[in-house]
């Protein structure tokens, strides 16, 4: 193992370690633009130049492997001067339009300028003109003047999605990013190029001019778009989700997430069921609970346990499902459980899964397997046969794209004696949304199930509560509350607690931690989802993140 001396500190590192990685292990953060830990290394930005003794040229630390006995200086006068110069060279043709740039506030160029340059400008020459609003594809807009040509986006499309849409065109300071003729940047991950763009050259159409980044708060969360459970930064401002950004987790999604998943944040705000409803009347929670107690008490007296059923939603957190299990068991006293959720959809080899529900494995975990949970089709059959008279349904997703089956279900619901719906939305959300993240109007206008419900209770989205999803690989991933429940909604686990208490059972918890303790605490080790050990920790570090510090993105 080679030993290298960095700024007079010696460190022994693995073969093939680059100077930048070795420096990171010693705690030196070497500035860089083009280097990205998940991409190949072109060493073209020259920001990470360091001085290597006995070498006349400054060396790019991202590319230079460590040799035994090498002596490196990352903070010498020459290096500091070179960094300053590289920043000055970048600014020669950079428009410095930070006031109207969406990247301002999270821009590497801004940060590095303040950290390493911050001198009076020596530039008097005219700048090279570039394209200013150039759509590379349906999601991504390019600004050629802000671009520093680090080629991260080009390499992303070559190496991660392997779709090869992008290249550099022209040469010298006229170089710009372009799509190849006849192509557009239209892969499932195109907005990742916006994330990895270190400056404001690539912006997402969805987020352009929407919110200054310094106004937003960020919560660590999990994407609900599919069963992959990509880790995200949930950026929100004034109780409104502004965007999702992927959060690094080598076990789940690396640095990436898909475009359709990104747009699922719109579900948090679109077409929400805002207030509890009894029949056609908007009521408050007290009235809704009272109505529930009186109708359900009567129904429990009238119908056998086998005539009562519950539809579970794999959209709901483990905490909500745990409460659902207790509620079915203790209040409804039924074991007729059926699988709800969204129907399957598009998938690919990278991150997108066909199962569009984030927590199917959570149902499996909470209910000790999926054997106890029957298919939606068998629910419809049972309802049509008149076997089910009382139905408590979580979320109004109908897990099929078969129109006939959907119609049969709706008809059967109309024949129920008691139908309770506990849902986020009024209408049916179709997934994935179309390319601009909009949901087809026809589907939003279909509040049939809400109208049919004797009692409809508004539940909160994952942004409004703490919770846990278990992804397809069995990794339990906690997510945090970003803002308080919107409108009059409540988290599912609290709704069940409230209803259960009122029905005379002790179902509520003072703290979510108590519920989690009960849910996970005495589980057998092999039955536990992989990362439940840190279920209550506030640290959101990825499960098996490298123990060695690594260079930043």
């Amino acid at each position, binding site marked *: 193992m080679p030993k290298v001396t960095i700024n007079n500190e010696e460190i022994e590192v693995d073969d093939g370690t680059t100077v930048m990685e070795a420096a990171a292990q010693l705690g030196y953060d070497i500035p860089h633009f083009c280097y990205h830990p998940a991409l190949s290394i072109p060493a073209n930005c020259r920001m990470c130049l360091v001085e290597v003794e006995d070498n006349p040229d400054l060396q*790019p630390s991202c590319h230079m492997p460590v040799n035994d006995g090498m002596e490196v200086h990352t903070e010498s006068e020459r290096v500091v001067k*070179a960094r300053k110069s590289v920043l000055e060279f970048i600014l020669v043709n950079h428009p410095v339009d930070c006031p109207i740039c969406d990247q301002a506030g999270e821009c590497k160029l801004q940060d590095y300028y303040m950290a390493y340059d911050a001198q009076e400008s020596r530039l008097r020459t005219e700048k090279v003109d570039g394209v200013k609003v150039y759509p590379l594809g349906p999601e991504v807009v390019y600004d050629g003047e802000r671009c520093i040509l680090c080629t991260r986006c080009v390499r992303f499309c070559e190496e991660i999605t392997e779709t090869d849409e992008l290249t550099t065109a022209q040469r010298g300071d006229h170089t710009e990013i372009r799509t190849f003729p006849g192509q557009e940047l239209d892969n499932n991950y195109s907005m990742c190029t916006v994330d990895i763009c270190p400056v404001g050259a690539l912006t997402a159409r969805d987020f352009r001019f929407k919110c200054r980044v310094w106004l937003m708060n960020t919560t660590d969360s999990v994407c609900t778009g599919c069963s992959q459970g990509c880790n995200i930064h949930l950026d929100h401002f004034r109780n409104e989700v502004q965007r999702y950004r992927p959060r690094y987790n080598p076990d789940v999604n690396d640095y990436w997430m898909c475009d359709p998943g990104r747009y699922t944040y719109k579900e948090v705000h679109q077409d929400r069921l805002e207030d509890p409803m009894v029949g056609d009347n908007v009521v408050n929670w007290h009235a809704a609970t009272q109505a529930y107690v009186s109708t359900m008490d009567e129904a429990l007296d009238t119908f056998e346990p086998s005539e009562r059923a519950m539809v579970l939603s794999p959209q709901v957190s483990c905490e909500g499902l745990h409460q659902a299990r207790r509620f079915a068991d203790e209040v409804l006293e039924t074991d007729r459980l059926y699988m709800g959720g969204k129907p399957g959809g598009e998938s690919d080899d990278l991150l997108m899964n066909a199962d569009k529900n984030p927590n199917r494995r959570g149902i499996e975990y909470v209910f000790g397997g999926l054997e106890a949970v029957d298919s939606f089709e068998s629910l419809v059959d049972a309802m049509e046969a008149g076997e089910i008279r009382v139905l408590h349904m979580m979320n109004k997703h109908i897990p099929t794209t078969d129109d006939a089956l959907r119609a049969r279900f709706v008809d059967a619901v109309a024949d129920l004696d008691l139908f309770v719906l506990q849902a986020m939305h009024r209408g049916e959300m179709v997934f994935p949304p179309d390319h601009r993240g909009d949901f087809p109007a026809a589907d939003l206008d279909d509040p049939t199930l809400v109208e049919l419900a004797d009692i409809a209770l508004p539940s909160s989205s994952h942004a409004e509560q703490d919770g846990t999803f278990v992804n397809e690989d069995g990794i339990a991933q906690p997510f945090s509350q970003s803002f308080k429940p919107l409108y009059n909604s409540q988290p599912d686990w609290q709704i069940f607690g409230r209803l259960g208490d009122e029905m005379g059972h002790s179902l509520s918890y003072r703290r979510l931690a108590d519920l989690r303790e009960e849910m996970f605490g005495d589980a057998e080790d092999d039955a536990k989802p992989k990362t439940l050990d840190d279920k209550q920790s506030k640290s959101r570090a990825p499960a098996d993140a490298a123990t060695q510090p690594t260079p930043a993105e």
Partner: protein
Amino acid sequence: MDEKILSKFFDRDDGHKLEVYEDHGGYDAARKAAEMSREEIVNEVKASNLRGRGGAGFPAGVKWSFIPQETEEDKYLVVNADEGEPGTFKDRQIMQRDPHQLIEGCIITAMALDLRYCYIYIRGELKFTEDIIQDAIEECYDKGYLGEDIFGTDQDLDIYTHISAGAYICGEETGMIEGLEGKPGKPRIKPPFPAIVGVFDAPTLVNNVESIACVPPVINRGAEWFANLGVEKNGGPKLYGLSGPIKNPGVYEAPSGITVRELLESPEYGGGMKEGKELKAYIPGGSSCAVLTPDELDREMSFEAMREVGSNLGTGCVTFVDQDTCMVRLAARLAHFYHHESCGQCTPCRDGTGWSAKVLDAIEAGRGRHEDLDLLEDMTGQIEHSTICALGPSLTFVVHSYLDKFPEEFEAHIEQGECPFPSWSLDDTKPAAAE
């Protein structure tokens, strides 16, 4: 120089034909090399003091010895015929008038290093030489000089010509390799060097046309004879291209280490400056070399001698500059060249070349300030040690040498607010001064 080695057919219209070449002992060197071991050939080239003739002057034999001997994959020879250095026009003469010497050089090089394929990477503007070289290659295939088991050895060799899509940077060896692979000409980071990972990721030898053309004489007449034609560490005859306001501009063959004065003044070569022209400066080997003043006229044309004064022998094609030339304008012109040819990969070169060109333009147009001179010196100095290839640093040498050698001209521009050489002025609104 009495006997012409590299330029013996330059005056003949039929020098490019195989029969003429063979009448003068052509392909004897290849036959001789076929009898020699690989090691003997390499050692002979090493002993000949042949220096790379493309500009860097790396000893050819040493470069050859970097090619790994036993490899599973086929190895490549790439002949750099992308002659694009401003002021340089020597390789095209070989390609046009004596292509068989080049091909014979390729054959011997391939025998020495077991190179299976050879690409001659020709500058796009020199398309006409491709036809000539291609005809010569056909002649060789007909004779069995190329193909399988050439000259009775077990060496196979195929030669292909490739026309560059056109960029100065493709003359840089790794930029050339990228271009050959069909990619934009953007130099690679070294190491790995092409000798290990070259074209199509195989070991590759990249040599200049003139370097390869020197190989047959080395083998034919021995390393000692070749080395004795030059000076210490710079062996053999060399082609010199002379340009500028001199009596006889053109390409001349002369020994390595000849003085610049002899090249300029000897009636055999340049014949002196034109009537009424006085020498003010000269660029020894293409635009990327630092400019020198007449007091360095007695310098030897060797890599060591030129490096002593901070310049370079480069390609050996000398550009003479006369008294009426505005050096600021010349520096600006060259800066524009490097700006135009920068591939755009590395930040310092991509943005620094254009910036310096614009600053030089401003000074030339009389809009300069005294602090611009410090800015130029400082800013171009930061390009020098921080880029992937040598294009950016070339601009550093250029700007620094013009600032260093002709500071008074820069000062004059700034103080007078206009170019003191009216006929060279960038400002078209002013009438040129009457002669």
